[in-house]
C-alpha cells in the first residue's frame, strides 16, 4: 500500500501509542479528589504543560477538547456569543473563504440561528487572505466585528496564511482572531504567543497522536461561552471527563512533532518535490495548486486537466495508491472543492484535482509508485470524461 493521505490522518507514533497503552491500563478520573484522581490529574497537567511548551503558550491557555472540530466550534460559536453578549452591536463573523468546514459551518450556523452576519474573506489565486483584505473588511464596520477566523494552513492545497500579520490587523481593532492550525503544527513554526492570535486549534491525529484528542489555545482574557455544558472540567469553558490516556498520547505526539519539525519539514518538502517531478514526467500538463512559496511541505494538490478526480482516485486505489480528492464529501460524492472555487478555479478544474499528502513513513518509493501509476490512470480517466456528455 502506498499511503498518500497523511493530511486526512497519519499513523500514531510508537511513543504516543506506548504512553497511551500504559495509561489505558491505569485507573483514575482526573477530577477525583483521591489518590487515583490526583495521579490522573498529574498526567493531564503534564500533558497540558508539554502542549503549552511546544506551542508557545502557557499551560493555563490550553483547553483540551475531543479534537479539531470541537475546538473550532468552541472558538467560533463561543467567541461569537461572548463578544456579542459584551456588545450586541458585534454581529459580524469574518472567516477565510478557504476555511475547513469545521470553521465555515459553525460560522454559517451562527448566522442562520444566532443573528450573526456571516462574511467570507476572499483569497487570491494562491489561496491567501491578504492583510489589507482583512483590514478593508473590518473597516466597513469595525465595531460590528465579533471575531475573525483564518486558518494557519489550508488542508486541501496547503497554502500557508500570513497569520501573524492578520492577527496584528485584528488586534489593532481589539478583535480576537482564531486560527485553525490543525495542518500546521509539526511542519510550520507555530508559536501561539508570537503569533498574537487569540485562539488556536490543534488536533492530535494529524501529527502522530490519537484521533479524539485536541486542544484550543485561548489567550488570557479570551473567554468563549461554552458549547458543552457539564462539569466544567476545562477552565469552565469545556466540560466532559478528561480522556487521560488520549491526552497523554496527544501531548507526546505534539512534543515530538514540534521538536523534530525542522528536519521533518525539510524531508517532506524533498519527497513532495520528487513526487511532483514524477507525476509531471508522466503527465506533463499537470497543474500544481496552492502557493508555491508559502505552502505546507507535505501537501501536493494537483489538477489533471480533462479528468474527474473521483475516477482517478478509484483507479489509483485499485493499484494500492491511496489519496484524496481533498474536498468534503456529501454522501460519498466528492463535491467541487469550495477551496479551489474560492481560488478562482472553474468547477471542472476543481473536480479534476487530487490531494497527495506525505508524512512520517513516506518514502521515495511512494513517489515512484505514483509516477508509475498516474500516467495510465490519467489516460483512462480522460477517456471516461470524454464519453460523459
Amino acid at each position, binding site marked *: 500500500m502506498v499511503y498518500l493521505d497523511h493530511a486526512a490522518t497519519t499513523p500514531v507514533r510508537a511513543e504516543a501509542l506506548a504512553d497511551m497503552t500504559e495509561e489505558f491500563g491505569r485507573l483514575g478520573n482526573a477530577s477525583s479528589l483521591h489518590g487515583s484522581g490526583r495521579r490522573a490529574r498529574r498526567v493531564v497537567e503534564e500533558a497540558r504543560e508539554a502542549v503549552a511548551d511546544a506551542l508557545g503558550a502557557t499551560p493555563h491557555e490550553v483547553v483540551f477538547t475531543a479534537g479539531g472540530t470541537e475546538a473550532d466550534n468552541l472558538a467560533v460559536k463561543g467567541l461569537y456569543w461572548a463578544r456579542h453578549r459584551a456588545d450586541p452591536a458585534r454581529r459580524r463573523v469574518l472567516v477565510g473563504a478557504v476555511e475547513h468546514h469545521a470553521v465555515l459551518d459553525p460560522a454559517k450556523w451562527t448566522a442562520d440561528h444566532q443573528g450573526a452576519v456571516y462574511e467570507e474573506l476572499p483569497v487570491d489565486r494562491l489561496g491567501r487572505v491578504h492583510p489589507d483584505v482583512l483590514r478593508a473588511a473590518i473597516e466597513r464596520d469595525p465595531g460590528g466585528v465579533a471575531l475573525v477566523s483564518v486558518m494557519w494552513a489550508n488542508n486541501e492545497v496547503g497554502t500557508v496564511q500570513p497569520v501573524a500579520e492578520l492577527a496584528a490587523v485584528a488586534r489593532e481593532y481589539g478583535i480576537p482572531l482564531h486560527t485553525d492550525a490543525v495542518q500546521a503544527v509539526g511542519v510550520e513554526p507555530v508559536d501561539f504567543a508570537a503569533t498574537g492570535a487569540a485562539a488556536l486549534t490543534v488536533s492530535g491525529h494529524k501529527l502522530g497522536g490519537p484521533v479524539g484528542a485536541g486542544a484550543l489555545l485561548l489567550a488570557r482574557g479570551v473567554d468563549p461561552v461554552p458549547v458543552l455544558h457539564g462539569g466544567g472540567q476545562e477552565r469552565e469553558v469545556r466540560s466532559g471527563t478528561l480522556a487521560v490516556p488520549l491526552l497523554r498520547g496527544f501531548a507526546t505526539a505534539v512534543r515530538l512533532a514540534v521538536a523534530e519539525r525542522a528536519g521533518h519539514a525539510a524531508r517532506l518538502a524533498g519527497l513532495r518535490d520528487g513526487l511532483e517531478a514524477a507525476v509531471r514526467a508522466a503527465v506533463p500538463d499537470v497543474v500544481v495548486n496552492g502557493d508555491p512559496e508559502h505552502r505546507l511541505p507535505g501537501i501536493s494538490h494537483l489538477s489533471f486537466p480533462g479528468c474527474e478526480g*473521483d475516477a482517478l482516485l478509484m483507479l489509483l486505489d485499485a493499484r494500492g495508491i491511496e489519496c484524496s480528492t481533498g474536498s468534503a464529501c456529501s454522501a460519498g460524492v466528492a463535491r467541487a472543492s469550495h477551496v479551489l472555487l474560492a481560488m478562482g478555479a472553474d468547477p471542472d478544474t476543481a473536480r479534476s484535482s487530487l490531494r497527495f499528502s506525505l508524512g512520517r513513513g513516506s518514502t521515495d518509493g511512494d513517489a515512484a509508485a505514483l509516477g508509475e501509476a498516474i500516467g495510465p490512470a490519467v489516460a483512462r480517466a480522460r477517456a471516461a470524461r470524454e464519453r460523459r456528455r
Partner: protein
Amino acid sequence: MTAQRLRVLAAMSGGVDSAVAAARAAEAGHDVTGVHLALSANPRSYRTGARGCCTVEDSRDARRAADVIGIPFYVWDMAEEFDRDVVQDFVAEYAAGRTPNPCLRCNEKIKFAAVLDRAVALGFDAVCTGHHVRLVDGRLRRSVDLAKDQSYVLAVLRRDQLDHAMFPLGDCTKAEVRAEAERRGLAVADKPDSHDICFIADGDTSGFLSGRLGATPGPIKDESGAVLGTHDGAHRFTVGQRKGLNLGGAPDRRYVLSIEPVDNSVTVGPRESLRVDEITAERPVWSGCAPLTEPTACAVQLRAHGEVHPCRAWERDGVLTLRLDTPAAGVAAGQAAVLYDGDTVLGSATISATARLSEGAAAG
C-alpha cells in the same frame, strides 16, 4: 463463460437484489467493485428508507453490503445525467400526453449508458445489476420468478449494451435471494422491495407533475367530442384510468381513452372503446433476433407486469406495427411494447399510437 475473470462494476442500490448480485459475481471469481449511484444533487429530496434506492440511507446500506462481501465501494455522482435523461424526460413525456416508464429510461440512459460507458472507459468489462432477468447467449430471457421478472424494463437495451451486462439473479426467485442474503450476513436481507418512482419523494406523482407542469384545467370529452366536465391537469391521467374523473352523475363507467396535449383535453368512453388491436411503436430495438421485416407471429407485453398478447409484428421504415390476435385494453402511448418468443425477448419499441381495426382480429 464465467471461467473468465472479468473486471465487474456492480451497481449497488442499497437493496437486497443488487447486494446478492454483487456477492454472486464476486463468488464466481470476478474482480468486483461496488458502485452506488447518487442520482440526486439533494439526496434528502428523494424517497427515504425502504422505499427508494437513491437516499443517503440507501448509500450506507450499499456500502455495508460491499464491506460484508469484501469488495471496494465508491459512490458515483450521476445526478446531472439522471435529472436530464430520466426526470426531465418523465415530465416531458407526460406533457406530451404519454405515460413514460422511468425505470426503463434509467436502464436505457443511466445504468447501461452513462454508467456503462464510464465503466468501460475506466477499464471494467461489465456492469452487474440485481435485476431479475436472465442473459443467455446474449439474449434476455424472463426470470424464473415470473412475479419479479424485469425483462420488460430491460428489453430496451441493445445487443452491444447487453454484451457488457451481467444479471446473476435471473435463475432464482426473490425468496431465494432473500434467503441467500440472510445466509451471507447481508443486513439488507429483510429490506422491503422498492416501489413506485424513486425521485418522487412522497409517492404523489400527480402532485409532482403539477409542480413541474402547473395545473392547467381542460375539458373532459366523450368520443363524439361533447364536453362532459373539466379536469385540472391532463398529466393526472393515463389511458385506461377510471378513477379521478369526477364526472358526477354519469350513468356508465367511463375510462380515459386518450390524452391530447394540443388542446389539453382528455377523452373518455366505455370500456369497450379502450380495446385496441393495432399498435404502432417507434424506435425499435432488436436484441433477440434480426429485425422482423415481415409480419411474424410472436407475443407482446404492453406494460410492466402486464399480460402477454399473441400478435403479429413487423418493422418498416423504423416503425413497428403490431396486430393483436384479440384486442387489448388500456394501452398507453409512451409505454414499451416488448416482443417475446416464449420467455426470450426479441425486441422493444415505444408505443406511439393505437387503433381498433375491426371486431375480431383484423387481417393484415
